[in-house]
């Protein structure tokens, strides 16, 4: 990309300062929406842009905005800044460096659904970042962009930050709402969906930080302009968090549809020590382990192509690269241990399944398993699938099943002799 659309701080130094942000078209989109567009027009523009949720689910953003009913008030908007998926570190870079574009997106979303109160739910570890955002929110209040009767219109909006306290599950939107209400972060039964019964039982829109950060440029430049990036079904740009065995790990903002080959070898500089690439995971620890053959590497990173070609969803586009020094039984022990730790305990298949998988992989690391235990591990994983309220239980099985199927020899190495 010649110029960044989301990671604009890389092109514009000091853009975290309100004056600098304003001098670079900052809040032009918010003013345009507020003064010349009806809320429904704003939603329509976002719908037409093809923007899809960047937190992982890929749900069309504008359609989600349209779900809030007109006969139940007040409405709330919550920015999901709980970024906790192993391999994901994009929202943090946005908020730390380009905070106003994110906040402007949140403000436009709030206007579109006519919410007068919005929360930014940050993971507790982002303690410093929350204080930083509080300062930026204060700057906006002082400048008249937030508060009562903004810029002389009838619209009022207040934004508050709220810290979680260390729980991956709170990235799941209904668990997030529970947590924001001061309860255990455990997912709710759906329906009703948060758009109808959300925060404090009111209609609530929840969007990921990166999703919201796209909104100002869409409103300013129009849906057609935005569709000029990416593919037919995956419009726009995406921030790819690249980690693992690559020479240049980091965030890369690229049009959707860039291939694994380009991301890993052109942008990421190739594999550490020039080792041979073995596999990739496209959505952090929640991913399938995909063999990095030619077919995989040629796959465009877009929602539809990852699904169609690899049966491995793009998710949050947190690409973990694995080279031929990585043993897949070791990897699965890592991911399973993560999910066991993060299971909220509500659903029995997830709570017990992650516990027993962890116990098996732990024994594997001590070479204290028989060959049948490898099948048992896969069997436990398969029995968890489709039986939990939220996706965490399902996610914990993805790497297990695919790694056992595709890299059985790595597991056999851990069988007791």
């Amino acid at each position, binding site marked *: 990309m010649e110029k960044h659309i989301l990671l604009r701080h890389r092109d514009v130094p000091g853009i975290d300062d309100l004056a600098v942000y304003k001098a670079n078209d900052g809040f032009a989109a918010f003013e345009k929406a507020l003064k010349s567009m009806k809320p429904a027009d704003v939603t329509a523009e976002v719908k037409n842009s093809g923007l899809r949720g960047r937190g992982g689910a890929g749900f069309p953003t504008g359609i989600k905005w349209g779900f809030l009913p007109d006969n139940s008030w007040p409405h709330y908007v919550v920015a999901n800044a709980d970024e*906790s998926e192993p391999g994901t570190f994009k929202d*943090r870079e946005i908020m730390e460096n380009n905070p106003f574009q994110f906040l402007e997106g949140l403000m436009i979303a709030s206007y579109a659904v006519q919410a007068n109160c919005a929360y930014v739910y940050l993971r507790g*570890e982002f303690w410093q970042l929350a204080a930083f955002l509080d300062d930026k929110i204060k700057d906006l209040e002082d400048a008249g962009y937030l508060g009562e009767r903004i810029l002389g219109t009838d619209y009022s909006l207040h934004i508050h930050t709220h810290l979680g306290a260390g729980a991956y599950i709170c990235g799941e939107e209904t668990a997030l709402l529970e947590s924001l*209400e*001061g*309860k255990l972060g455990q997912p709710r039964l759906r329906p009703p969906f948060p758009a109808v019964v959300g925060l404090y039982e009111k209609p609530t829109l929840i969007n990921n930080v990166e999703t919201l950060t796209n909104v100002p440029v869409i409103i300013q430049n129009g849906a057609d302009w935005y569709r000029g990036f990416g593919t037919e079904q995956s419009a726009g740009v995406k921030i790819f968090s690249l980690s693992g065995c690559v020479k240049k790990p980091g*965030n890369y903002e690229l049009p959707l549809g860039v291939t694994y080959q380009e991301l890993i070898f052109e942008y990421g500089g190739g594999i550490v020590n020039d080792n041979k690439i073995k596999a990739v995971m496209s959505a952090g620890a929640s991913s399938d382990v995909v063999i990095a053959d030619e077919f995989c590497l040629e796959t465009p990173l877009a929602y539809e192509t990852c699904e169609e070609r690899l049966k491995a969803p793009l998710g949050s586009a947190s690409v*973990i690269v694995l080279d031929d020094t990585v043993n897949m039984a070791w990897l699965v022990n890592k*991911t399973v241990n993560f999910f066991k730790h993060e299971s909220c305990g509500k659903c029995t298949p997830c709570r017990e399944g992650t516990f027993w998988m962890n116990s098996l992989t732990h024994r594997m690391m001590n070479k204290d398993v028989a060959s049948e235990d490898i099948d048992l591990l896969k069997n436990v994983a398969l029995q968890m699938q489709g039986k939990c309220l939220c996706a965490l239980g399902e996610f914990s099985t993805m790497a297990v099943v695919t790694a056992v199927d595709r890299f059985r020899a790595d597991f056999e190495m851990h069988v007791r002799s």
Partner: protein
Amino acid sequence: MNKLYNKYEKEIQGILARYPAEGKRSAVMPLLFLAQRDSGYVPEAALTDIAEITGTSATDVASIMGFYTLFHAEPAGRYRIQICTDLPCALRGSESYLEQVCDRLGIKESETTEDGLFTVEAVKCLAACHRAPMFQLQGDGEIKYYEDQNVEITMQIVEEIRRAIATEKGA
């Protein structure tokens, strides 16, 4: 009202103002952070105080404290060095880094140094995968990130903190 409220009245008013009247309970987590600011853990008496302020029960507050990993029911070192050992960090050497830090401090993981200043803990992903090894430092009511670490850099940070505290005590 109670001890916690009296101590932090203005701050607590500010916290409560962020939520609607029917959402008072939302203040439980911010208040737990407040309650553990002084000693690095939540004293038992604070549970009742928080319950009273937010209109819940002390049992509910205790269960929330137990659910979330950043709240601590037991005292530990003044500073918790929390090292991420999840998959992406482990691929960049965070497991051996954790061992080295423990060795240099003369403790095992989840133990506290003799001077009572540092507890080392292995934790889950902190959204800093590209700058591993890394740790967050939890203490004095704050959480700070330290990225692109190796054991030498970390030990310098540890020594700086030790010096600052010695000066604080001397003054």
